């Protein structure tokens, strides 16, 4: 009986020591909570962003950190589900006591996570989650570096005008918050540009067979097929468009999946000449963009794209705000974030309010890329174009 409490005491002392050490270490580091899909169907995007966050944090810490203390990144996996994202955010705030939050990939998860951050009054810089609603709720602790998904279509409008001859559109989107929100905006934009939307269909992500909706699209003979899809759905959609011999003048992807190397590898020949909206490519004229691309490639031996650049940029924005903040209290960090005006590898970052949006970053340009011979080339706007866009897309049987 006597040995037992003694043992317990030892354990208690040890625990205390661990807790104290932990406490001391925590005081040295600035904890940044990051919510990302590290498992689940969106894990690929989560991985690119996580690596970019880590790379940026290493650079910042190597350059002296934040006012003498180091950045400590605490990643939580949201598995792509809003309820898990919500719980993960709560854990980061109440148990890990993070100073500031960033990350947020899918719109549905981000919406749930930002609501928690706002409730606890912890500043949250949204990296991706692009549905318009997220910055339209009047939340004052929420900032977003990613332009809203309604702006993805903007460069297409001018490109379509220039190319000419596009009168009808088929609009396919995955029925998630991101897909629905984008589809609604694109439909509105198309209407005001005088393009008739002849087919508008949502689909369940992860489907094996898209032929039911593609048969409908084929019957409607649209001039442009605009798809809002994640990477593997995007690849299957294009492969099956080729199978069914669907020949619009233009295949266009609304960001997300169409810019990943995996899309091109899986869809192979079917990916050729597909256009995609993008927010960033390694050719953008922002300082550090190309360096980031090369560093990423060297470090991880794989390619990065706009999601990674966003994460990399987010980390620098957070670090910048932390450096400028009067203290690490949520309120001071919030004020510092609100005053952000800087250049990152992702582009200029400044949080402004316009329309219904609050504390939303607006990029001067978004871009259109086109897959040409297995390479993704920036083709629009003209001032940034590396290659001339190929239009109209030739019929499948006339290729090669």
């Amino acid at each position: 009986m006597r040995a037992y409490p003694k043992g317990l005491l030892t354990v208690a002392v040890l625990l205390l020591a661990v807790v104290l050490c932990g406490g001391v270490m925590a005081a040295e580091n600035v904890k940044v909570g990051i919510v990302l899909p590290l498992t689940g169907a969106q894990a690929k995007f989560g991985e690119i962003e996580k690596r970019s966050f880590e790379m940026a944090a290493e650079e910042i810490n190597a350059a002296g950190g934040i006012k003498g203390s180091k950045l400590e990144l605490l990643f939580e996996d949201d598995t792509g589900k809003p309820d898990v994202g919500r719980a993960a955010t709560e854990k980061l705030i109440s148990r890990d006591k993070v100073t500031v939050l960033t990350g947020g990939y899918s719109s549905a998860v981000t919406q749930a996570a930002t609501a928690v951050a706002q409730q606890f009054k912890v500043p949250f810089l949204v990296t991706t989650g692009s549905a318009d609603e997220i910055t339209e709720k009047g939340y004052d602790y929420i900032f977003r570096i990613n332009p809203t998904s309604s702006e993805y279509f903007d460069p297409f409008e001018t490109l379509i005008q220039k190319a000419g001859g596009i009168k009808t559109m088929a609009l396919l989107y995955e029925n998630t918050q991101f897909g629905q929100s984008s589809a609604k905006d694109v439909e509105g934009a198309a209407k005001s540009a005088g393009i008739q939307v002849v087919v508008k269909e949502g689909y369940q992500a992860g489907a094996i067979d898209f032929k039911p909706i593609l048969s409908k699209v084929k019957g409607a003979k649209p001039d442009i097929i605009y798809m809002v899809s994640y990477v593997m759905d995007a690849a299957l959609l294009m492969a099956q468009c080729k199978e069914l011999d669907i020949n619009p003048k233009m295949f266009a992807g609304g960001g997300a999946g169409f810019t990943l190397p995996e899309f091109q590898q899986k869809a192979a020949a079917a990916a050729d000449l597909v256009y995609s909206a993008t927010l960033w490519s390694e050719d953008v004229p922002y300082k550090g963009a190309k360096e980031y691309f090369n560093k990423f490639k060297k470090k991880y031996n794989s390619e990065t794209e706009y999601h990674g650049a966003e994460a990399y940029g987010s980390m620098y924005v957070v670090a910048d705000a932390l450096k400028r903040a009067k203290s690490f209290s949520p309120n001071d960090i919030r004020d510092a974030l609100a005053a952000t005006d800087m250049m990152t590898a992702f582009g200029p970052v400044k949080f402004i309010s316009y329309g219904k949006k609050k504390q939303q970053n607006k990029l001067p340009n978004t871009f259109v890329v086109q897959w040409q011979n297995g390479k993704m080339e920036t083709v629009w706007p003209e001032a940034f174009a590396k290659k001339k866009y190929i239009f109209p897309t030739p019929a499948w049987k006339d290729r090669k």
Partner: protein
Amino acid sequence: MGILLQTIVAGLLKGGLYALIGIGMTLIMGVMGIINLAHGQMMMVAMYIAYVLNTMGVDPYFSLLVAMPTLFLLGVLIQKYLLNPLIKVDTILPENQVLMTVGIGMVLTEVIRFIFKSDYKYVTTSYSSATFFLGGISFNVPLTIAFFIALAFTAAMFWFLIKTDLGRSIRATAQDKDAATLMGINTGRITVVTMGLGAALVAAAGCLLAPVYYIFPDLGGPFTAKAFVITILGGLGSTVGAILGGITLGMAESLGATYLGMEYEDIVGLAIFVAVLLFLPGGFKRLTKV
């Protein structure tokens, strides 16, 4: 008309594959009386085997010959060392074997994630998106091949269960385990063989799906759910029922996608699931009697 035919063809082809996914689960359900909630995850493992072999230049159809025995072995080991010991243990929960399969599913997913990361993998073949046209209706070549191989496997399975001694023992165990034991059947061994067979069948489905789909560690979950729906549709333990269930699900999804909207694909499948539970409890087995 063209659209309707195309939809039916698409549903039928997908249904054949679904049947093969469901049949293993229904077999396990019939004999062990448990739902194998690691079923889709086992298929995922088989798909990774097809992927690895493909990087060495092996055609996914030939990888059937490797993936099926490997998964058979995996099934046998799981049953022998993880599930059967649980029967002897008294717990407060009677379904602890089912809970164990959930755990096994998670372990399989995470082990694969550890080895292959979360990247999307795909099996590239020259015929992945090859098609032929029959009266204006397009048939995807790999899905058509998968359909016929699935039918062949199902027929073979049926013959095996009806005609062979081992098959009869499996059916006897499914009907009444105690009686089967009294008749001298080693039911412990039968459960091990059944799990192996179920795993091998879903491995076949995985290899057939690989050329048309993509591979990532988390793809097991949705397919476990589909297999479960098919098992309930077909009637627990019924091979013929599983074929009907698979084709019904494939058709329902396709027709629903065309005429209601593809975003309702899952809802249509689950609505049928609920309708069968309400109006035809016992599934198609009640109609076919086998």
